[in-house]
């Protein structure tokens, strides 16, 4: 048994338990040391992830390949940036408790397990570890009714999704005779014709995962939870778990269910189309910037799914590249959102950014970069993420999807421009409170990545391609 393949997960789990003790035992507030410890653990985890060789472990239930490594690095990055944004915010809100970083850490372990799953049961264990941690941190601001509501909503709908998943997984087990991906894969490819039970099973599994990535028509929870949850929690929700769930969806569909592509392609096609349309049109009228970002994230998932609907290597590469760039853009945008605070009061409306171009030129410039990048305007990174999925769509003749995609990106550009307009064209509404150094670091890092990506796009693209190559093999 090759347990060393799961070394990063093991280390993070041990670290989580230790940090829990560190938080509980001393009499004084340990939030800061625990957060730093978590960040350190994530960093060490990332190093270990990169160093992990290929292979299977735990009776073929756990796989380590370049795909998992790519996704894991992104997840760790997303979790780390989420923590950096939360540290100061929680303190100022008076909700700084050491449980927060520990919960983030546990959810991260869940995500790492998810993307390394090569068995429906491993997948479920990872998914639940993630979800349970997320339910708690959505309601982390427990005296705030909106946060509590967000947590409850997320829990009820998340539980429903878990139920869907289990139902789909049991059907798959019943009709293929195994929960192991490889075994399911060979069962699918050897069966003559496609058994209806298996198709229903796949559909349920896809529906459950579509819930996690908030693809249309399973998106309803997203705006409410994004709006209600504390801002850094929203930042975390929108980054690492999205990457994990998308990677998972890619792995499940492209590995065991690859031979059922004709069946699930249509489902993904519809989800992609619906998400792009809803994400662009519904965001136009939003006044709350967190809600706006919720719809924007639905739209972005639509673009990413376009690559999955195409279901070729190029398409899947597009998906992974999209998620990588999306993660960075998103971290940058939320770094701005957590800085939106005036005289100690948090702000969430789009108008609250008015005149930021005068009061805080640096942050306004960074936000402008993120907005243009999200709108997919070259030479910023967001353009390349869209370019690669459109490329795949055109290559396989998905003309309708590609055309709808480019047209909705124009609609999307409208509301991204609106934010720039508020920042630069409107008169200032007063300066924001000074932002902490950690937030500035995230802001600067994400901004530079977006601006300079066009100089050296090849390595990131190659990494995504290598990740996807592992799936096909």
């Amino acid at each position, binding site marked *: 048994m090759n347990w060393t393949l799961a070394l990063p997960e093991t280390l993070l789990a041990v670290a989580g338990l230790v940090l829990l003790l560190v938080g509980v035992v001393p009499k004084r507030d340990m939030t800061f040391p625990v957060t730093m410890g978590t960040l350190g653990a994530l960093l060490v985890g990332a190093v270990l992830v990169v160093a992990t060789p290929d292979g299977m472990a735990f009776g073929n239930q756990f796989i380590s390949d370049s795909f998992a490594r790519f996704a894991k690095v992104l997840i760790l990055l997303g979790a780390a940036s989420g923590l950096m944004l939360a540290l100061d915010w929680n303190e100022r809100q008076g909700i700084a408790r050491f449980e927060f970083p520990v919960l983030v850490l546990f959810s991260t372990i869940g995500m790492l397990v998810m993307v390394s799953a090569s068995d429906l049961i491993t997948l479920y264990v990872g998914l639940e570890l993630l979800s349970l941690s997320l339910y708690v941190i959505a309601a982390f601001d427990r005296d705030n009714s909106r946060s509590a509501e967000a947590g409850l909503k997320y829990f009820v709908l998340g539980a429903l999704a878990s139920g869907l998943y289990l139902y789909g997984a049991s059907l798959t087990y019943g009709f293929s005779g195994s929960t192991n991906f490889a075994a399911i894969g060979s069962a699918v490819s050897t069966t003559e014709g496609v058994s209806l039970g298996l198709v229903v099973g796949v559909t349920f599994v896809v529906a459950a995962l579509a819930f996690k990535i908030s693809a249309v028509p399973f998106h309803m929870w997203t705006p409410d939870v994004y709006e209600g949850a504390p801002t850094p929690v929203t930042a975390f929700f929108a980054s690492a778990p999205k990457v994990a769930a998308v990677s998972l969806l890619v792995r499940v569909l492209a590995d065991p269910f690859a031979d059922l592509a004709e069946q699930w392609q249509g489902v993904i096609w519809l989800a992609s189309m619906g998400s792009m349309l809803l994400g662009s049109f519904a965001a136009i009228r939003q006044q709350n910037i967190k809600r706006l970002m919720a719809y924007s994230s639905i739209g972005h998932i639509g673009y990413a799914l376009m690559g999955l609907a195409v279901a070729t290597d190029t398409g899947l590469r597009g998906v992974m590249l999209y998620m990588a760039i999306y993660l960075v853009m998103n971290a940058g945008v939320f770094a701005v959102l957590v800085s939106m605070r005036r005289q100690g009061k948090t702000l969430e409306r789009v108008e609250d950014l008015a005149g930021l*171009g*005068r009061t805080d*030129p640096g942050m306004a410039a960074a936000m*402008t970069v993120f907005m*243009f990048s999200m709108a997919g*305007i*070259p*030479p910023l990174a967001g*353009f390349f993420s869209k*370019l*690669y999925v*459109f*490329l795949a769509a*055109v*290559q396989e003749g998905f003309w309708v999807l*590609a*055309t709808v995609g*480019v*047209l909705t*990106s*124009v609609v999307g*550009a*409208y509301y991204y*421009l609106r934010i*720039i*307009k508020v920042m*630069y*064209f409107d008169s200032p509404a007063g300066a924001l409170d000074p932002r902490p150094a950690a937030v500035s670091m995230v802001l600067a890092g994400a901004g530079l990545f977006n601006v300079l990506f*066009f100089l050296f*796009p*090849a390595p990131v*693209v*190659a990494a995504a*391609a290598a990740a996807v190559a592992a799936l096909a093999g």
Partner: protein
Amino acid sequence: MNAAGFPLLSLLTFLPLAGVVAILCVRGDEATVASNARWTALWTSLIVFVLSLILWFQFDASVVEPQFVEQMNWLPDFGVNYHMGVDGISVLFVLLSTLLTPICILASWEAVQTRVREYMIAFLVLETMMVGMFCALDLIIFYVFFEGVLIPMFLIIGIWGGQRRVYAAFKFFLYTLLGSVLMLLAILALWYNAGSTDIAVLMQKAVPSSWQYWMFLAFFASFAVKVPMWPVHTWLPDAHVEAPTAGSVILAGVLLKMGGYGFLRFSIPLFPEASQFFAPMMFALSVVAVIYTSMVAFAQQDMKKLIAYSSVAHMGVVTVGLFTFNQQGISGAIFTMLAHGVVSGALFLCVGVVYDRLHTREIARYGGVAKVMPAYALVFMLFTMASVALPGTANFPGEFLVITGAWRSNGWVALGTGMGMILGAAYMLWLYRRVVFSRITRDEVRGLLDLSPRELAIFAPLIVLTLWMGIYPSSFTHVWEASVAALIERHEAALAVPRVAGL
């Protein structure tokens, strides 16, 4: 000839960004930052202009192939290379861009007093995008620069513009983006067809006839908005009126050329059959543009709007010329684009001069300016005459060649285009008469000061160019003659193949 190994084009393209970095490093109070930003931007753009002169002197007009070529791996798995080079068609557009940028910066010296640092950064970024776009020899690289222009231009109109600037900026951005994204799909389809987006490779690989029509329309969506052609020109008057003077100059001088350049560089060589097929449509839209927008120009009360509509008319002449597919027509179209870049840029500067003084662009608020601003009246007259294509000024050779070319392909088109010139003379002279001549009726006009030395310095190069282009046009036409001849030859060869195959 070619200074091999020295990346002149990359230097021209990215040097303005070095200026941006320098401006970002400036610290101090607002006045210091503003003055440093102005000087840094001016010097950067002047150095770029001087370097671009080397490009012109070193350029060998007898060579058809791109010169000063640079090639580098960029997106290897996608087959996209960073491929830059200029040929006879693009080299002068590079010069036009590098010439107009310092002029614009100088023109904004006093007019722009708020957020000077951001303003100068926007202009330098804009220069990078413009130069890069004209040098790009790969469609994806071209697209990156082509779209990248939107970012600084959106901010320039939106932040430093007039009263309805928000509306104008959004309209400009979304109109152009909508056209461009369709072109992006067509670019990807081209890549799928040929396995590369390198223009040289694409030229070798004919696009199947059945695709050509769709792809021509997709490129058309992008370039027609940019040119702009009737009926998708409506963003232009708004953008021009609301943009600050320098923004209008760049918009009219360079950005509109991106459409015409795109037709010539991509649509016609890549889709020869479709170009031939759609030529009547292009003629019809162009002639409508020439006559209709000339008549609309008559009704304008706002000087900038009037000149904006005249731009649409002039660009109509350009698109007529491009789709005649003969040496005179295309040569004339290129000449008209360059001349229009200089002349309409200068006209917007003329408007800017009086706008800076009275803060109104309404024609009726002026009158009798000649009495108090004689030098200005002279300069304005020169550019008015150039705009109506008086022989001896910049616009004449171009428009004459276009009409000659059009005559060879369709007499009615030539007639329509000629009508436009007559109407153009009428509204421009009328504008000139109302602003410059007639009696002074308003006290505020009486107090106007004539051109300052800075303003004279701005106009001087444009005056020289306008006369030079009018008096000795062949010093410009010879630059692109070989390239255009090769393009036409290729076009005819491409058309001959299917005909033979059809027999």
